[in-house]
């Protein structure tokens, strides 16, 4: 593992490079859109990673938090609040929703938590679909001054913030508690009284990130023809895929998974059309079955096998866990 200062240096350089990129080189609209989607996926998969990867609670209701963030940001921004405040409002609204959804469902164990959150997210989708029967969009003045560059920077900021949040959590007592909850439940041990507390914190933080991700998306897309689309289970499933394929329960697994998923789906979508989704599904199944530590984990495992000294890429190697 790299020493902390070196790691910070690498990250700092990366941030700088990303910051400078649009100023130094001309990035086409297509590539910018793609990068912003990568950022959104990083945010969402990191959000899923906190509750699903580190805490071991398979949350299938991520879409509700994301959708909530999109809607609230959209309307707050429309009310002429500055966009960065609007995005934060989106994040906070998702936290409130998580309180409502999460406090009851977190009492459920294992698969039932997954089913419960899935059902409640569907409830949200149906209710929202009934309330907003028509499309929602920003006034024309917003569209007139539309440029992708600010979207890029907002996405970049939030994405790095999400990674930083995850990093600091995993290094804190809270992170240890979360991992303990996951491992003890996996070993079917009796968990301490505090496990509920850790699950709640993990869910709230995860929801906050998902809401922020929604905020970025609301900033990027000014109009939504079908409001229910932002509550669609796709917004749960694709980030989950990114996290698992990359390696959940690790810091950079979801990042790598997001890049992999978004970029590859762009390339495949052009060459293979619909078939690329089939390939992703198959890939996901193969990863779950044969590389339970994800891309990141298998890289570090191969390295370990080769060198035995293995400075694993797998950030917190001891935290890599089967399946998640």
């Amino acid at each position, binding site marked *: 593992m790299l020493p902390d200062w070196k790691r910070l240096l690498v990250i700092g350089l990366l941030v700088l490079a990303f910051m400078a990129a649009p100023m130094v080189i001309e990035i086409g609209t297509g590539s910018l859109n793609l990068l912003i989607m990568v950022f959104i996926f990083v945010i969402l998969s990191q959000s899923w990673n906190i509750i699903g990867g580190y805490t071991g609670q398979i949350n299938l209701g991520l879409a509700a938090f994301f959708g909530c963030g999109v809607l609230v940001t959209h309307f707050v921004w429309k009310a002429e609040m500055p966009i960065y405040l609007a995005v934060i409002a989106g994040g906070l609204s998702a936290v409130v929703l998580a309180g409502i959804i999460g406090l009851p469902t977190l009492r459920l164990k294992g*698969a*039932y938590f997954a089913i419960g959150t899935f*059902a*409640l997210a569907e409830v949200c989708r149906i209710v929202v679909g009934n309330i907003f029967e028509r499309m929602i969009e920003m006034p024309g003045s917003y569209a007139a001054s539309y440029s992708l560059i600010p979207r890029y920077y907002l996405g970049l900021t939030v994405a790095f913030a999400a990674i930083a949040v995850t990093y600091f959590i995993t290094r804190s007592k809270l992170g240890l508690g979360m991992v303990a909850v996951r491992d003890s439940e*996996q070993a079917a041990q009796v968990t301490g009284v505090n496990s509920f507390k850790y699950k709640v914190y993990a869910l709230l933080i995860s929801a906050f990130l998902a809401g922020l991700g929604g905020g970025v998306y609301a900033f990027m897309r000014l109009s939504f023809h079908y409001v229910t689309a932002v509550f669609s*289970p796709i917004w749960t499933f694709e980030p989950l895929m990114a996290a698992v394929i990359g390696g959940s329960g690790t810091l950079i697994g979801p990042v790598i998974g997001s890049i992999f998923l978004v970029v590859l789906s762009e390339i495949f979508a052009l060459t293979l059309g*619909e078939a690329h*989704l089939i390939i992703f599904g*198959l890939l996901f199944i193969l990863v*779950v079955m044969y590389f339970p530590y994800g891309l990141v984990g298998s890289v570090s495992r191969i390295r370990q096998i080769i060198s035995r000294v293995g400075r694993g890429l797998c950030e917190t190697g001891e935290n890599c866990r089967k399946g998640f």
Partner: protein
Amino acid sequence: MEFVLQTIANGLLAGALYGLVALGLGLLMGVMKFLNIAHGTFIILGGYLSFWLFNLWGIDPFLSIPLVMIAMFLIGLVFYRLALSPLLKLPDVGMRIDTSMLITFGLIWVLDNAMTMLWTPNVRTILTSYTGETFRFFGARFSFTGLCGVGIAVLVGLALYSVLSRTYFGKHLRAATQDAEAASLCGVNVQRVYLISTGIAIALAGVAGAVIVSSYSISASGGIGWLLIAFVVMVLAGEGNINAIIPAGLVYGLLEAGSVLIFGVPYRQAIALLVFVLVLMFKPQGLFAKRE
């Protein structure tokens, strides 16, 4: 009054179908401890098989059910061999459930998109000469196809129950689930029993799909909605409580009907799902659990 009766009648017809929809999921999850998230997708696949048998060769959807079952049974065998049997090596049941959930989740992706490519995203339904025919009882109208669905649901439910409780195969399956190693020491071929049961579970999904396409409609991505219903019914029945699944389906159908009466059609599913989460929280053993 007329409206109330009709709503309840609709609830019953839908409820029987809901029970049928949940049988395969309940068998895999409740008895074998595999959580098959792709259950709804298999239902849609069964619906398509029935649709094409009708469209290409004009085989009546209710008469083609055995054919659909056989085809789906074979698909289930492949599904078990490739996706589920490797999971028996996992050290505990919790991990088996979690991992099977993830694998079948990937399978949704594969099957949904394959079906979209093969058969377009269009909504399909079967229109026979008797589609739309209704009967009147007690002031409410019952559609002929809906009644057929009820009959099939009850029949299939009873058949599954008696297979599990009466036959050697059913006893082997239950024994293997409780303690696979001990069952193999009794001479039970655990792998084969699981293989065949998975085939049966997928065949049951096929029956449900055939009934759905004849009284409602299907589309390639419609599996998730049916999956959710299957979950709800399974939880209401209580995990592993196969003989309570059809009654639980009826309860859920009536619940939906009730919420239509009180809150109107748009919130039909939302209210029922909320009730489901409440049951999940406060009565996780299901509504039909026997007290020991």
